[in-house]
């Protein structure tokens, strides 16, 4: 559990190969976390060296975002490996490409399953465990793409919008249980997942997202933005008239 100076001992990363997720894990290990579980499809054969080099024990776990029936079992396996879950980072997802989705509607539905419904079952499974243990934080990687959905990536954006709403509702349902949810809304983050899309203004590195998460976990925030300027920016963008919003470039 979190100690009196805000350090956690155990971290479970759902989406064990996510660059942002791994940056958050590394940051928490740097601050003192000692047990890490990386959960991904097929397990994580070659985990990044940083957490182990910093003194943490790294475990790998099979986790399939598209198999909701298995999610409760996955959480139980993680608990069996490291005990109480202090922080769970929910970072799995696919970005894909809007044109491709439009050409192949079935692929869009599969992406939506990874980006939304997979988080519903995983999030509820994690929440049940956190409620039972009476402490812990679930960090949900949302996105500014879900704050106001744009025509250029509305398949991805609408799933993130659903996820963001789900995470906020889950946070409220956990209020008073000792467990909490931190919703993270990064902007454009240059990673392998986003390599095929054009850069957007106000980019953040995975490390900056990790900094925002670490600060949010310490302060008790419910939502963090990375970079921070996106919060006032999107407060304005939400008010932009539709005809103008529609024409907005990437």
């Amino acid at each position, binding site marked *: *559990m*979190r*100690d*009196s*100076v*805000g*350090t956690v*001992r155990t971290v479970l990363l759902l989406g064990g190969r996510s660059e942002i997720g791994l940056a958050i894990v590394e940051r928490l290990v740097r*601050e*003192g976390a*000692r047990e890490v579980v990386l959960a991904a499809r097929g397990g994580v054969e070659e985990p990044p060296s940083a957490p182990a080099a910093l003194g943490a024990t790294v475990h790998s776990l099979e986790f399939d975002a598209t198999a909701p029936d298995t999610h409760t079992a996955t959480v139980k396996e993680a608990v069996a490996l490291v*005990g*109480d879950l202090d922080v769970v980072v929910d970072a799995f997802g696919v970005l894909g490409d809007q044109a491709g989705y439009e050409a192949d509607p079935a692929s869009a539905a599969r992406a939506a399953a990874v980006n939304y419904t997979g988080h519903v079952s995983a999030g509820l499974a994690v929440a049940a465990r956190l409620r*039972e*243990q*009476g*402490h812990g934080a679930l960090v949900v990687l949302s996105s500014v793409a879900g704050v106001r959905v744009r025509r250029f990536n509305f398949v991805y954006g609408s799933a993130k919008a659903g996820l963001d709403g789900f995470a906020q509702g889950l946070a409220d349902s956990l209020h*008073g*249980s*000792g*467990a909490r949810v931190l919703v993270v809304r990064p902007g454009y983050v240059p990673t392998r997942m986003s390599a095929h899309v054009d850069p957007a203004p106000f980019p953040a590195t995975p490390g900056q997202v990790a900094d925002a998460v670490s600060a949010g976990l*310490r*302060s*008790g925030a419910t939502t963090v933005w990375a970079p921070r300027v996106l919060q006032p920016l999107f407060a304005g963008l939400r008010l932009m008239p539709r005809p103008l919003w529609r024409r907005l470039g990437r």
Partner: protein
Amino acid sequence: MPSQPERPVLLTGWGRTAPTAARVVRPRTAAQVAEALAGAGPRGVLARGLGRSYGDAAQAAGGTVLDCTGLTGPIRLDTERGEVTVPAGVSFDRLIAHLLRRGHFVPVTPGTRQVTVGGAIAADVHGKNHHVDSSLGAHVRALTLALPTGEALRLTPAGDDPELFRATLGGMGLTGVITEATLAVLPVETSHMRVDTDRTDSLDATLDLMSRTDADYRYTVCWVDLLAQGGAMGRGVVTRADHARLRDLPPPLRRDPLRHRSGTLLAAPPWVPPGLLNSWTVGAFNTVYRGAAPRRRRGQAQPIGGFFHPLDAVRDWNRLYGPRGLTQYQFVVPFGAEETLVGIMEGLSRAGAPSFLTVLKRMGAATEGHLSFPRPGWTLAVDLPADLPGLGGLLRGFDERLLAAGGRLYLAKDGRADAETIHAMYPDLPAWRKVRERADPDGVLVSDLARRLRLL
């Protein structure tokens, strides 16, 4: 209609960090304690007193916490045997008031009266007389312990199960639930202390004065200014005292020599902005506080409350550290390891640690408790804002120096040490575990502290 699940309660220690949720029940009798132990769920049970442990010692995430402040009842003073038998949920505040009226005092009191008798034994608390009288455990003549197995044992230092008695002194509530205790008491003529005060100008002068004059008084303590710069770092106010005899009191006080007032003068506001206590404000407080102390004063009559429990005058003073809370770092290093003590004090000073209650004290003989904290040596207690940047790393560095010097941390204050460090500091832990496993074979008793430090 299905019954509503009972709402969990968020609990923290006195430091107000790291809340966890538990079901709270409030037993009023030993029978109700036994009932609660028997009905334990998979996440265990723990007794809690008045919540003055700073860290996570009195919380059990996901489990059941017994609020033992309801375990009250008559206090039975036996002046012939010089002992008092008291239900474990009675506070030191009430016990001291009861005893003083009858010309007696507790054998040991911590820096607050707001602790229960059970909690004080479970932490084996010490006071300003440790160098003379050891910790509370040395004065426990008997205690009644409710075990998860359903038994209730009356334990004494030389009774049928002296090992379980030992394991319970400082055992952090993990060997059973204390429901009643018999403590030795100290006869006193007045409710005042005869206090000698000296102001020192440097750390060397502080250490020297304390080393030289400790043995002359039953009670000594030093308030230290860590924020003073350069050679003035470690200057302080040394107070030493004995219980005042009737003849020590000025005539107006002699009319009612055992008069005692508890209660609070002020209360901290319910919300305080983060960062109120910083190196500037605390530095200024330190300068004023030290300046207000006399350079040298002898034989001042001071009420017991003002001498032992000055912070009890400010209710909820822990709120002054703001919403992120505080962590207290208290350690003891053996005599001869002054270099480590001074090194850590300098480290705190360099970090600008805004501790407005930094207390230095010399400790004497240890008790038998396996996990009891006090050892002969110097003990320093520092309050630190939990959000002080880099605090975790700073304290981990101190932990290493303590280990190298044969020092240890106080479990009742800790909320952040790692398991390996504590295991190395408490060599009797394996022996304690054996006794505990006998008392609690199913592992019902558990706390967040025990989980974090892998004590069980």
